[in-house]
């Protein structure tokens, strides 16, 4: 099916009931401008399909409405007709990047810069050795068929936050120009590396060490491929670069095969979802057993306290296809679980996915979510995703679940 048919099919079921608009985080954050809400995006896509079918191309300006979608799928979870406005944005972004359907180029240079970097360096920001510091001195089992696959996701946060801070300081046009230049000369991306947030990097490294320690305590043997470990590729899919996504997926498949991997232990929701559910749809023989590190912690004993812990569920664990509830089971073993007013299939995004393209939008949404979590009255806020953690980490009460689990681990 062509992208256009795909978009037509997804949007044709929409009756414009506006249910999705009510839960879309970007609508309120962008002053209720309807094309920055789920319903507006679907109607814009419908018009886009109509124009392209009529004229072969469209002159609609669609870039910001679709790129600003967080891909949280809150819209899909309330749509009575089963329309996925998040998916609509994904397809629309693919239309943009295909370059075939629009009168003028509307690809975002920041997106292109990230994609070029992934394809060239296996990392959105061209990181390599920087992602392995957490593992110095740790023992891995090089003969294991289990791979601990960090995907560099936790490590990326200390660097991406610097980049988004720079973006906040400049006008959007300037940022686009700089990104355009880096796209042309990809090695320039490495200029940002020394500016990383050192404290945050230490914190993220410690979270990774906690995950390592939890798995070891559970008796799991696994290998880690260090500086050869590539980024999982989520951006390629989410930003609409389907051809590159497929090419990259094959690269990952071959790498895993070369390292004789059968079981991939992921540690974040984005990687878990893309490896488990999305690559197998697009790539032949992507046949790996994909698990999450929390799957292995069931038999561990933890010291439980009366502390109230509110859990911010990552969208890819609660509102996407896979509902992953292990974090909730584990929180119940260490404290009293509190769920925020918006949770489960009606949860609320942390704003993180917009951080690199729309940092101010990201700030607005994460602040709103942070306030909601604080209002729960819990003593600690916990999440299980590096992007959520990086965006919600606004005071000392916010933790990654791995940190708390390791601290409360009863090693006797």
């Amino acid at each position, binding site marked *: 099916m062509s992208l256009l048919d795909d978009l037509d099919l997804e949007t044709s079921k929409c009756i414009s*009931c506006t249910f999705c608009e*009510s839960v879309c985080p970007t609508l309120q954050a962008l*002053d209720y401008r309807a094309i920055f809400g789920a319903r507006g995006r679907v109607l814009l896509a419908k018009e886009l399909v109509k124009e392209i079918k009529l004229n072969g191309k469209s002159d609609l300006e669609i870039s910001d409405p679709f790129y600003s979608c967080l891909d949280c799928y809150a819209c899909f979870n309330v749509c009575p007709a089963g329309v996925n406005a998040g998916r609509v944005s994904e397809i629309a972004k693919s239309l943009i990047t295909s370059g075939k359907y629009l009168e003028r180029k509307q690809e975002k240079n920041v997106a292109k810069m990230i994609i070029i970097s992934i394809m060239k360096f296996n990392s959105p920001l061209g990181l390599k050795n920087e992602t392995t510091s957490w593992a110095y001195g740790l023992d891995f089992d090089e003969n294991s068929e289990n791979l601990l696959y960090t995907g560099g996701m936790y490590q990326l946060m200390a660097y991406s936050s610097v980049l988004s801070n720079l973006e906040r300081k400049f006008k959007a046009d300037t940022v686009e120009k700089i990104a355009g230049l880096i796209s042309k000369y990809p090695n320039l991306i490495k200029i940002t590396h020394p500016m990383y947030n050192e404290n945050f990097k230490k914190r993220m490294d410690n979270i990774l060490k906690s995950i390592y320690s939890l798995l070891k305590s559970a008796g799991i043997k696994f290998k880690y491929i260090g500086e050869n470990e590539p980024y999982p590729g989520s951006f390629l899919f989410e930003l609409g670069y389907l051809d590159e996504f497929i090419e990259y997926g094959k690269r990952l498949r071959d790498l895993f095969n070369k390292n004789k991997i059968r079981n991939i232990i992921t540690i974040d929701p984005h990687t878990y979802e893309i490896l488990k559910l999305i690559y197998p749809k697009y790539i032949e023989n992507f046949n790996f057993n994909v698990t999450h590190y929390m799957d292995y912690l069931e038999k561990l004993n933890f010291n439980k306290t009366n502390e109230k812990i509110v859990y911010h569920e990552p969208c890819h664990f609660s509102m996407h296809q896979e509902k992953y509830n292990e974090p909730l089971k584990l929180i119940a073993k260490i404290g009293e679980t509190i769920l925020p007013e918006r949770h489960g299939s009606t949860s609320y995004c942390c704003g993180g996915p917009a951080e690199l393209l729309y940092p101010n939008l990201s700030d607005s949404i994460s602040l709103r979510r942070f306030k909601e979590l604080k209002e729960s009255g819990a003593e600690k806020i916990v999440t299980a995703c590096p992007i959520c953690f990086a965006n919600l980490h606004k005071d000392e009460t916010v933790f990654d679940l791995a940190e708390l689990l390791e601290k409360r681990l009863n090693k006797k």
Partner: protein
Amino acid sequence: MDILNNLREIVGEKHVLNKKEDLIPYKRDASFFIGAEPMAIVLPGNVEEVSRILKLCNENLIPVVVRGGGSSLTGASILREPGIVLSMARFDKILEISIQDRYVLAESGVKLDVLNAYLSKYRHFYPPDPASSIAATVGGSINTNAGGLRAAMYGATKEWVLGLEVVLPDGTIIQTGGKVLKRSVGYDLTALMIGSEGTLGIITKAILKITPLPEKYGRIMVYYRSISEAGRAVANLKNRGITPLIAEFMDRISMDSITHVRGIKFPKDAEYLLLIDISSTEESLNKKMNDAIEILKGTENIGINTTTDQNEMDAMYQARKGLYSSQLNERSSPNEYVVIGDIVVPTSKLPDALEKIKNKINDYKLKVSLFGHIGDGNIHANIFADINNSEQMEKVNSFMMDLGRIALEHDGSVSSEHGIGMEKIDLLKEEFRYKRSERNLDLMIQIKRLFDPNNILNRGKLF
């Protein structure tokens, strides 16, 4: 373009939208109509801005349509001719609550589900509960006198509005009603605004009555082969003194659409489902449920299920609320839309009215799904039709008129809770003609002229 500059001066640059892309979503609401191209979308942030916008538009004779959640089913929130769309989205604050005095003061753009989530912290709620409550706003639901699922027990919006802040077309700001349950001060302007569909003024704030949440409720689902028998079940319950919290019915098409979208399954041989919620205190719920079940057993049903499981009840409740939208999956071609019928009859007349509607559907050979808030006699007849096929639409309009006449012949009304908008202008006239009260329409037109002499507000709706 001077007008746009003036509007920008009032609300700020970013709250006036006039790019081609920005206008697209405002040409649609939840009805099948496509509105006229707006000159601009204006998003005011306070009542003074609304006042200045209306004054400006009134002086320049610019049509204005007010938009809440945009969930109108009759085209009430889209333009019929070029003008501006006044979005109340930024009026999203809950300002005051008094449990002792049983009211909440909210801005008109607050969504009903958001309001009720807030009130639930106080163990209270605002009962009007249109199926679109996730999207519908305080202002929009007042403008259509929305009813919804809980109207079986609590009545429609008009029972729950104590007072309003309204901006008139000349920019005057008025307060109607107040924070008391009773008042006797001449004409009830609050009541006049309810159901006025944005034709008289712009509602900016509302004082709404609230009530404690039901302590507990349980659900009974009864399946039927005969539509009139489902209607009789409701009549029997009410005759025996049982007022359900909600009483909904749906036909096979409705059940199938829920199965397709939500995965909830229903007995294969069931043609109709009656869904009844009974509320009570913790101690007496079982007795009340059993009383209702005994009455329902006396009807020719093919199965009765009960539950008090909250998750199960919530899932079905949400499925029922999204029923209109999920029915789009039951279309036989992508060109088909769903045209919604919305009539009401006294519950005592339901068995006969439903039978006559069923026969009428057979006469017309249309694909129609029947469902509705049967507890208050409200029947929705959703017609699947290609709105670009004039021959088919003629048939649909004729069926809608006949549906309205059935309601009138059974002492009911052509519009129960969706309002008139663009869709039911002829039906409104028919209702007054049937009741030999054509003068009602004259009075309405004169009231409209008094409030809005230049006819800028929601022009082309109601009449």
